[in-house]
C-alpha cells in the first residue's frame, strides 16, 4: 500500500511544522501550502488523498478554496478537513455545506483529529476513537 498523501493548507508556519511532524510520524506523506492560490496549484499538481484546510488564508479564504475545488474535476473527490480557529457556530455548517467532511476548531483534540483523518482516508477506525477521551 502506497503512502497516503496529505496536503496541509495553513499560513501558520509553526502549525505546518508541528502538524507535518505529527502526520509523518503516523506514516503519511505531507505537503504544505501557505495561501489559497498556491494551495490549488499544489493540489492539482500533487493530487493529495486528503486536504487539511485553514479558513483564514492570504489571497482568498478557505471557503474560496473549497468552492474552487468543487469546480475542478481532478480535485472534487478529495476529502477536506477544515481546521480553523474560527467559531464553529458560524462556520461549521457553512464548511460542511461547501463540501468539507469535518470541521475542527483549533486546537483540535489529538485523538479525534487523527481519527477523523483516518476516517477521511477510508482507513478502518477503532470505535473507541469516537468515544471522546
Amino acid at each position, binding site marked *: 500500500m502506497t503512502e497516503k498523501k496529505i496536503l496541509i493548507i495553513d499560513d501558520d508556519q509553526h502549525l505546518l511544522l508541528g502538524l507535518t511532524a*505529527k502526520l509523518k510520524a503516523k506514516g503519511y506523506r505531507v505537503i504544505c501550502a501557505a495561501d489559497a492560490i498556491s494551495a490549488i496549484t499544489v493540489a492539482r499538481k500533487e493530487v493529495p488523498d486528503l486536504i487539511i484546510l485553514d479558513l483564514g488564508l492570504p489571497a482568498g479564504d478557505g471557503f474560496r478554496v473549497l468552492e474552487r475545488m468543487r469546480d475542478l474535476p481532478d480535485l472534487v473527490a478529495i476529502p477536506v478537513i477544515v481546521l480553523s480557529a474560527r467559531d464553529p457556530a458560524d462556520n461549521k455548517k457553512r464548511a460542511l455545506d461547501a463540501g468539507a*467532511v469535518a470541521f475542527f476548531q483549533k486546537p483540535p483534540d489529538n485523538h479525534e483529529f487523527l481519527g477523523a483523518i483516518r476516517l477521511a482516508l*477510508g482507513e478502518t477506525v477503532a470505535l473507541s476513537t469516537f468515544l471522546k477521551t
Partner: protein
Amino acid sequence: MTSQASRRVDASEYLSPATPILFPSDSGLLHESANMEVSPTLRAELLDFNAWSEILTTYGRTMRVAVALTDSQGQVLGKCHNAQPVWRLVRDAACGWGSGCPFCITTHVPCTAVADALRTGGAVMVRDQAGLTHVAVPLLLGKLRFGAIIAGQVFDRYPEPLLLRRVAKEFGVSAQRLWELAREQRPVSNAVLRASGDLLCALGHAFLRQRYGAILEAKLAETNGRFRLLVEGVRDHALFTMDPTGRVTGWNGGAERLLGYVEAEIMGQNFSCIFTREDIQNRVPEKQLQKALEEGRAEDEGWRVRGDRKQFWANVNITALEDAGITRGFAIIVHDVTERRKIATVLEEARQERECLQEKLLSHVSHELRTPLTAIYIFTTNLLDGVCGDLTPYQHEHLTFALDNVKQLKSMVSDLLDITRVETHKLTVEPQHLSLAKLIDDILSTCLTNAAVKNITLRSDVAPSLPFIWADPARVRQILINLIDNGIKFAPAGGNVTVATRPSPEDEGFLCLSVSDTGCGISSENREIVFDRLSQVRSTTEASRSGLGLGLFISRELVSRHGGRIWVESELGHGSIFYFTLPVFSLAKLCAHVLTAPNLEAGCVTFIAVDVAAVEGAVQADILLEIRQVLERCIRPGQDVLLPSMSDAEPVETFFIVACTDAKGFEVIASRIVRELLNFDSASKLKPVISSTTVLLAPGQFGEEQIDNVAARVEQLVQAHLLGKERLQ
C-alpha cells in the same frame, strides 16, 4: 341744653326698632352666589368707600341726611355728609359713646340697627336719645352679608359753644356762621326718612350688584388675558381644542408653529389631518378619541404630519373635556419629540455598535489566542507521542503538566467566546436523546488525571436505571466538567468529589444532577453571587484560584437554555453541593403534536426503522446528517415524526420514524425513502434497510393516556431494535 336733657331719657324708650323694610332680592344673583366664596380682598373691594362715596354723597345731599357705609361688623368705612359738620362734631366730640353706630347719641344701650338690618335683610329704623332717627339698610348678595348703609337725620342744634368755636376755627369760619349753618340743618321728617330707607335699600343693593359684576368682569378679563398669554406663550407645545366630533375649535401659537396651520385655516377641520395616511386608514384618530372618551385621556407617540406634509415624531396627549357628564370636546397637547427620538435611536445604535465591537473584539481575541495555543498543543502532543524520540518518565511527566495547562487555557478561550454568545443571545444548545450514565462515566474518566494530581477521589453515585434526558451532550459535558473541576480545585488533598443523580419532585419532567465536594464551602452571602459573571470568592486560597471565574456563569446560562435550573447548597467548612436539572427525554412530548385524533383515525401507527450501512467502512457523520435531511423530506410533515438520534454511539446508523399510517401507507413511505436515498447516493455506497412494525391502537378516545401508551410502545421498539443490532454486531 336740649342734648343734655335728651341724654336723661331712658334709651329703651327711644331705641325702638322700626318695622324692617324688606325688599325682594335678585333671585338670579342669589342663586349664583348661593355657594359663593368671597375672599376678604373681594369684600374690601366691593365696599371700597371711594367707589361708594359719589352715590352716597348724592343721596345724602338730595335727601338732606348724613350717610355712612359700614362693613358687616358695623365698623364705619366712610361717611358722607351734606353740610353736616354739626353731626360730625357731635359724633367726634362724644368720645366714649361706644363703638358701632355713628349716628346714635346714646349712653347706655349700643345701637343694633346694622346688626338687625343684616339679620332681617331689611331696613331698620332707630331713634336715639337725642330724638334723632336713622335708618340702616343691609348690603346683601344672596346669603352673603357685606355691610350696611346708615342714613340719619342731622342734628341741628349744637350743645357746646366752646367746642363750636373750636370747630369754627378749624373750618376757618366764624362761630356765628357755623351756628347759622347748624341751625339750618333741619332734620328730615321721620316719614321722609322711612320712605328714603326703601330707596336706599334698593339703591345700595343695585350699586352693590353693579359693583360686584364690574369686579368680576375685571377679574375675568384679567384671567382671560393672562390665560391667553400663557397659552399663546407656549411655543414648543401645540395646544388645541376640539369639539366632540374631532373638529378643531381652538388653536394656539405653538400649534401654528409646530403643525404649520394658521388658526383661520384649521378651525372647523377634523384633526385627522395631522395623522399619516396609514394611520387614517387604520382609523387611529377615531380610536384615540374613543380611548380618550372611555378613559378620560389618551396618550400616544408616533409620526404626525405638518401642514407642509413633513413628518415629525410626536407625543400626543388627548384629554376629554367633560361637564356634568357630557363630553364638551377634547383638549390636545402635541409635543415634537423627534429630537428626543433621534437621540434615543443614536444611543441605541451606539449601544449595539459597542456590543458588536465587544463581540468582535472578544471573538478576535479568542481567535488570535487559538493560533499560538494550537502550535503549543501540537508540539506538546508530538513530544508526548514520541514523534521526536523517546522521553524519560520525568520528561513525560513535565510535558503532561504542560499539556494539562494548554487544555485549561483552551477551555478558558472557549469560555470567553461563550460569554460573548451569552451577551449576544447566540449561546445555543442542540438537545438530543441522551443516556446520562454513559456520559457521566465518560466525563469522570476525563477528570481522573486532574483529580489524581491532588489525590482526590472521584465518585459516581448515579442511579442504575436513569431515564434518557433531552440535552446537548457537549454542553452537559461542559457543565459537569466545570462543576467537577471546581470541586477538585476547592477540595483539600485526599478529599472527595461525587457526581450523583436524584429525583427532583419539585421539577416535574426534569432529572436532578449534583456534584458535591468536601471543600471549604461557600458562605451564605457568596452563595447568592457564585453564579454571577467574574465572581470568584476572594477568601479562597491562592493555590485554588485559577480560571476566569466564568465557569459557573456559563453553566447557569447553559442549564437555563435547557430549561433547567442550577443552585448550590453549602455551609462554610462543610463542602458544597451544586445541583442542576435537565429535562427528561419524553417521546410522548416529542410525538404529541403528530399523535392527534385526526392523525390516528386509521387506528394504527407504523414504527419504521431505517438502517443505513455503507458498503465499505463506516458512514461518515456528516453524511448521516444529510441522510437525516433526506428522510425529513420523505415523511409527511405534521403527520409523521422522525425521531432524534436514539443511540448513544456515534455515528448513528439507524433512523426511526413514527408514521400515522397503516401497512399500506408504510409501503408508500418506504419506496419514497429508497428512491430519495438512491438519488442522494448515486454511487450506491449506502445500503438502506427499512423495516416496520405496526402498532395497533385501542379503539376509543385519543387522549393523553393513549399518546403516552403509543410513545412507550415506540420506545420499547427503539430499544429492541438497537439491542438487536448490537447482538448482530
